[in-house]
């Protein structure tokens, strides 16, 4: 199975961390289904041009989080992701995006009220795109 992971070499984030967080979101978001057999450590490492040490660390971390399980002699599989975990992950992903949007607002000196109005306006446009004509 091919896993779509995109490494950014010029990021300050260590390689194992980039791989781990991307693989974690692929699993929790359900893009890689329960029971999927992951590539062997050497194969995965080869595809990313990184070392087996890095990939082994990722597999071990995600296994201890309960997202992967290893069957002796067969390989590493995606485990069942619980509903609570999936919920937490969804919320955290959105929270993080909102937080950084607020950071941008604050860095260009937006007032709280001003930012709130802008957010609500964007929210409205996104959820009701059909209304956008008649408004002004």
């Amino acid at each position, binding site marked *: 199975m091919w896993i779509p992971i995109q490494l950014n*070499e*010029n*990021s*300050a984030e*260590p*390689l*194992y961390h980039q791989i781990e967080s991307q693989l974690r979101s692929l699993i929790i978001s359900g893009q890689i289904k329960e029971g999927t057999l992951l590539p*062997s*450590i*050497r*194969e995965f*490492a*080869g595809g990313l*041009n*990184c*070392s*087996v*040490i*890095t990939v082994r660390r990722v597999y071990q971390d995600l296994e201890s989080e309960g997202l992967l399980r290893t069957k002796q002699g067969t390989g590493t599989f995606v485990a069942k992701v619980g509903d609570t975990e999936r919920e937490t992950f969804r919320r955290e992903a959105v929270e993080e995006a909102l937080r950084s949007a607020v950071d941008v607002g604050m860095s260009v000196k937006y007032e709280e009220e001003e930012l709130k109005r802008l957010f609500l306006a964007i929210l409205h446009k996104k959820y009701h795109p059909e209304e956008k004509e008649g408004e002004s």
Partner: protein
Amino acid sequence: MEQTAIEMKGVEKKMRQKLIGPINLKLPKGYVIGLIGENGSGKSTLIHMILKIVFPDRGDIAWFGESYPHEIPQQVRRQIGFVSEKSSVEEDNLTAEEAAEFRAEWYPEWDQTYFEELLGKFKVPRNIKLKKMSKGERRKYEISAALAHRPKLLLLDEPSSGLDPFAWKLMIDELREYMESGEATILLSTHIVEEVKRLADYVVLLHHGKLHGMAEKDGLMDNWKELWISGGMDLAEDLPGIIQVQQEFHGVVRMITTECLQAERILHDSGISVLKTRTLELDEILSLWLKGHLPAGMQSGKGD
């Protein structure tokens, strides 16, 4: 605890013009170790000592945990595959098939099907003598033959010299495939940085016969970075592993660190923003390392 394929302790060899060693090195089992060094830095001698083609003047070598003061026993030697920098003349007058017959007698693990499969993939010409082959064709034969007895330790001395880019890519794939079992270990000497980048888990650096140490490849890539930071030159004083620092323009300082992960943490904690980060290319890292800047926390290997 990780198993060790080869361990060298205080190994020294006086060559015509220089002293190789003392070398203290552990090659962990199950990994690809890239051996890097300039021409004449002692890479081939190191490999020859592991094969006992060259006998060290001093020090000890252990093969899979055992040391052998005299010859390496046959059953151990048979678990080692070797692609020499120069092809041996002994097989010159044989075809690939004839040479394989001899090798199959010597190596009980010889896998003829696998050998044929490799010759086919590499498009090695049949029914012509090895000495009549082009350099690249001969190389492809040598690599196939070294893999065909499924050695536990594979010593490759510049295996890719003479290979065209397609055969080179195929060699990388085949070596990865061979590593799948997790039981095999490869020591690969090379001038080609891309080869190390694609294959190696660890990098060993030799310089004028001296070992500059062994480092995890990804650890190098994660830690050797160029940073652009807002601030002045004095910033560098509080950061670890700084080997170059320069005021780029007013208010921006550029530096190279060998400990980026830690430097980042310090900068983050002091609320200083990093404007840009660039991972050094592996060849830049290697040449800085050659100049004496050592990676943090590596197996030093100097052994005094």
